[in-house]
């Protein structure tokens, strides 16, 4: 049997992983909901966020400054990519955006390799403090990551429910043509959503960097997990993304406590089961490309 200490640290680990997954998956989910694109290049913004965090924390000594810088650079890159590439492909079918964004992801990995090389690099953890929960020492940083994820969820919720732009985005998820008919600039709405998605992916990368090593392939390594989160939650649903991110985080973490290889495989088995029972995911509606 598992002892309590192992279990608690496992749960905390799962929560922090789930928080990272949530921050990345929310961008994908928003992009799919509003623009009906599958934006694999979110994983590039994640890597960019992590690498900028690495460089800035090395230069300035503060990881938090690095995370902020990573978010900014990721957001700017997302803006540029949206303007130059995605503007032309919103009209096309889903698979089209999937392939194109995969091209951007691979190309971006090439750029990262060009600037930073292929060697994995460590990022220092901002606080090494530990606190005591039921007799188990838990790193504070992991708790901070979880807290940030919930803050972001709250922020996104407020943004979508309390601001005009947010309400327009929600309306756009229901029906883009009607929103356009009301005289709202949909193109600008798309750009805003895409930049938010990219920035959050950058935040996820920056927060994840101290927990792992940053290396050029890091985007591809989490790709499968993030997609799993989006699929289990249902494409286009924010709440579903939050729930499934933490489910996947726990499955990864607790699965590895039971039997190490399970960490990578169990989530996929869970996803297949859920898809077979409910092909649109937990909270997904039957959204079809118009």
């Amino acid at each position: 049997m598992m002892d309590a200490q192992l279990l608690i640290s496992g749960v905390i680990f799962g929560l922090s992983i789930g928080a990272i997954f949530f921050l990345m998956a929310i961008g994908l989910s928003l992009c799919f909901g509003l623009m009906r694109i599958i934006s694999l290049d979110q994983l590039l913004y994640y890597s960019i966020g992590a690498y900028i965090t690495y460089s800035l924390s090395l230069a300035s000594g503060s990881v938090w400054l690095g995370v902020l810088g990573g978010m900014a650079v990721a957001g700017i890159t997302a803006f540029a990519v949206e303007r130059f590439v995605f503007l032309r492909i919103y009209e096309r079918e889903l698979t089209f955006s999937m392939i194109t964004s995969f091209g951007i992801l691979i190309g971006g990995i090439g750029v990262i390799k060009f600037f930073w090389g292929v060697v994995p690099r460590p990022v220092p953890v901002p606080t090494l403090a530990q606190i005591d929960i039921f007799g188990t020492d838990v790193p504070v940083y992991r708790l901070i990551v979880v807290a940030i994820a919930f803050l972001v969820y709250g922020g996104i919720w407020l943004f979508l429910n309390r601001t005009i732009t947010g309400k327009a985005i929600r309306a756009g998820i229901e029906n883009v043509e009607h929103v356009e008919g009301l005289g709202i600039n949909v193109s600008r709405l798309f750009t805003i959503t895409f930049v938010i998605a990219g920035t959050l992916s950058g935040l996820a990368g920056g927060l994840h960097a101290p927990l792992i090593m940053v290396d050029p392939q890091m985007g591809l390594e989490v790709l499968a997990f993030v997609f799993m989160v989006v699929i289990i939650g249902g494409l286009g649903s924010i709440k579903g993304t939050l729930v499934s991110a933490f489910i996947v985080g726990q499955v990864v973490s607790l699965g590895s406590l039971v039997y190490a290889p399970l960490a990578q495989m169990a989530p996929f088995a869970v996803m297949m089961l859920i898809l077979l029972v409910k092909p649109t995911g937990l909270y997904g509606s039957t959204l079809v490309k118009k």
Partner: protein
Amino acid sequence: MLNALRWWSGILLAFSLLALSRVFLPLPFVIEVVIFSIYTMGCSFLLGRVGFISFGQPAYLAAGAYGTAFYLFYFGANPYVGILLGVLSGLVVSLIVGPLFVRLRSDYFALVNLALAVIVYYLMQKVLADITKGDNGLWFLTNIASTPVLDLTRPNQFFVFALLVAFAVWAFYKYLDDSVFGACCLATKINEDKLEFIGYSNYRVRLLAFVIANTTTALAGALYAIYLGFVSPEITSPSRAADPVVVTILGGVGTLYGPIVGAFAYTGMKDVISKLIGNWELFIGFLLVFIMLAGEKGIWGTLQPRLEKLFLRGKAATTPADDGETRR
């Protein structure tokens, strides 16, 4: 007689060019191109004809490769039997997962396939490590027995064999294109409701197409296993999951010769660029974006109409033109 000649002429020309390229290019390169084009053919068929994009082709490649490898490592020595078993295991795997997968929508299909590739990767790397030797892989190059007619242990004769296999694969797919089944596949991509009205089952058409395509992929896996003489989990690594998709797009989606042209260009660029700047992902990625924005026709899709104009002698279009945007 004339019709038959016309039917075969395209494939014959393509493969004699490929055989001829052996004179100018190093053997490993040409063999890689031949096997890679078989690998891509399955993906191209799924994407271009059935409208399914699959990021999980390495899973089926691994099914074929490990089917062959297990036989040659543990049981026997005859490479032909090995290839046969590899193809069979690919068939079995796609028959098992096919009925579940083909019910899904195209985007979910892509991701579930990716998940399968990841599962197979960890299965081979960790869970079955006792049998597959984990990351070290199975080495069986010396186990392969020489065979009388075409000796697969010699690269030159292996090349001839791979070329013959590829030829057969292409003849088969060209036949499929002309058949009712080929038309059904296109129909299920473009308008599934109408296909149902005519009286075909979307599910069965897709399942059959899925099994055919992935068995082809497994065949490529079996060939890789024989050629390299070893198989490791690297073959199904998730980071290589997009290779066949990239090559398909590069060559031209849904065209018959796209996979050959794409495999040729991709392998060539990989070699040349990694020699020049050592950073070929950058190039491949932006090339992919460029091709998609320029009209997603790919190299062969752009060349084909021009070549036809050049040799305007009543040669019918080799493949049904795939310029109709399919929107749902």
